[in-house]
């Protein structure tokens, strides 16, 4: 457990590790290297086919389709930038972007804050750590399922669990999932509820911080808050960054929860119309494949953009200790 994180390396340098020593470039060495290359391509054959047909091919194809009008029946018809122009004036699209951003930027920080807080409590040598960790992790495994979305729909419904509990205290709740002001909030809570996965990663990261730093700081009279901000946070920034990128990408892709809780509509009044849900409606509800492809490209740009911004910004706050 404690060594796990050491295996993880930054993406860029990962490929350089464990390279075999350079062989002297004799004839024999050359042919041997060539043979090893061929063997490697053999092992990678399924991956190459998958990359071509399942990943890169479709990305390029959707770029082409995004300039066409295509409903699966007949041939795609070239329409130039029309789909992109329509996106500029599509109110529902703009709304879905707003909903998605709100969801990502509210739920991910809350989720990570909770994950870090719990990880810090558990890291103080609590007995039964494994049990607590498992319990808190369970929602992460189940959170994306249809069954949990069904549960959420009931729990936050007009006569749901939340309102039954509130009624016990004499408070009259309302139908949280059917109120456009609160529906998105219930999905944010659902995402925060799945804080267990980043928590486990934080825990592994906290284990890597040498105890003696804290001891030295204590001896020097540093307060717990001071130790948190001057030792824990700086040394944990690579992990925080890692969790942030991952959870943001996850959150951008949320679909099932909104689909089930809103019955596929993104309602009430489009308040839970996530970008992915709207893309689904355009592509597989009205089979407007050209427009859906253009939307897919916008999503790729957004996620790519955020990842790049995250990585660039990380230079200013992530501390790699070298």
């Amino acid at each position, binding site marked *: 457990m404690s060594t796990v*994180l050491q295996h993880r390396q930054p993406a860029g340098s990962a490929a350089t590790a464990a390279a075999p020593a350079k062989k002297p470039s004799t004839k024999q060495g050359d042919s041997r290297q060539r043979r090893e290359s061929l063997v490697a391509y053999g092992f990678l054959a399924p991956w190459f086919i998958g990359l071509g047909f399942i990943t890169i091919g479709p990305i390029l194809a959707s770029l082409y389709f995004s300039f066409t009008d295509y409903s699966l029946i007949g041939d795609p018809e070239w329409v130039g930038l029309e789909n992109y122009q329509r996106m500029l004036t599509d109110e529902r699209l703009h709304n879905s972007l707003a909903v998605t951003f709100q969801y990502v930027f509210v739920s991910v920080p809350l989720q990570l804050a909770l994950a870090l807080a719990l990880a810090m409590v558990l890291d103080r040598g609590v007995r039964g750590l494994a049990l607590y960790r498992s319990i808190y992790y369970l*929602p992460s495994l*189940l959170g994306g399922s249809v069954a949990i979305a069904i549960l959420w729909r009931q729990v936050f419904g007009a006569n749901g669990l939340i309102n039954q509990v509130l009624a016990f205290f004499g408070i009259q709740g309302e139908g949280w999932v059917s109120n456009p002001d609160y529906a998105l909030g219930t999905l944010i809570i659902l995402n925060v509820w799945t804080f267990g996965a980043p928590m486990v990663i934080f825990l592994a990261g906290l284990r890597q911080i040498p105890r003696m730093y804290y001891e030295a700081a204590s001896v020097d009279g540093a307060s717990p808050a001071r130790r948190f901000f001057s030792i824990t946070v700086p040394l944990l920034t690579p992990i925080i960054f890692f969790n942030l990128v991952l959870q943001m990408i996850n959150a951008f892709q949320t679909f099932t929860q909104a689909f089930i809780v809103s019955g596929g509509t993104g309602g009430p009044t489009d308040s839970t119309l996530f970008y992915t849900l709207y893309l689904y409606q355009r592509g597989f509800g009205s089979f407007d494949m050209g427009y859906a492809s253009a939307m897919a490209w916008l999503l790729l740009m957004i996620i790519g953009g955020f990842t790049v911004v995250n990585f660039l910004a990380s230079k200013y706050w992530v501390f790699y200790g070298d």
Partner: protein
Amino acid sequence: MVTKTSAAPDPTTTNAPERRLPEHLRRSLTHIGLILFGLIMLYPLLWMLASSFKPTAEIFRDPSLFTGNFTPGNYAEGWTALQHPFQHYMLNSAIVVAGSIIGNLIGCSMAAYAFARLEFRGRKLFFAIMLMTIMLPIHVVIVPQYILFANIGWINTFYPLIVPKLLATDGFFIFLMVQFIRGLPKDLDEAARIDGCGHVRIFLRIILPLSAPALATTAIFTFIWTWNDFFTQLIFLTSPDMYTVPVALRTFVDSSSQTSWGPLFAMSVVALGPVFGFFLAGQRYLVKGIATTGIK
């Protein structure tokens, strides 16, 4: 290979004493807090389990875990509420899950062996591309994938759900296995090489058996994700004959009125059951797996 250094970890685990509550009191309070918090987190799950044995009217009235009207009939009713009995959907899910696990184990371990142990042109570039595909949302490629699979007649079959796994499109697992294989001592494969073993035999006889923990992690995660996956199954499976559990549950929600929440909850519990079972059985691998790669 093993280099012992004197830098053993500091055995002191207790913090330096400070102006605080007595240690045992502080510990107890921490435990009480952690247990309370865990209970609040798990309460909806426990309540769903309890409610699956309640009459529907009670589900909308009673927030407690107990019922005076124990109703196992919800399960019988839910099991047959849809077009097919529920085991039909379970079987479909099982086929998709089994195919995905086998596909991921074969495709990803092969790719991982190449990335971790072989020297070839373009290795760094391909590895970087592989890492990038991990971050690629399925929504970006789903439309052209659908068009492709529609053209070769694969819509409403299990192929679009299984074949991509065999083609190692789940980069997480390649990454996970690459990290694991790199941690294995190279002496073993070199010894085998000197004895005249080719790469295929080294892969099959040495690397794969030693990679059992990574393969187990892959299998467990594939099980849970595929069993829970809704988006691709919703898109590629179009007739009730082919529906898997999540897609069937969705039609159940859409068709059911307020009156059938008991059976709906019962079937939701059935849907979560296998995931919960795998969670209990494979916790060790799960925790290791996420700590290594950060996946959910």
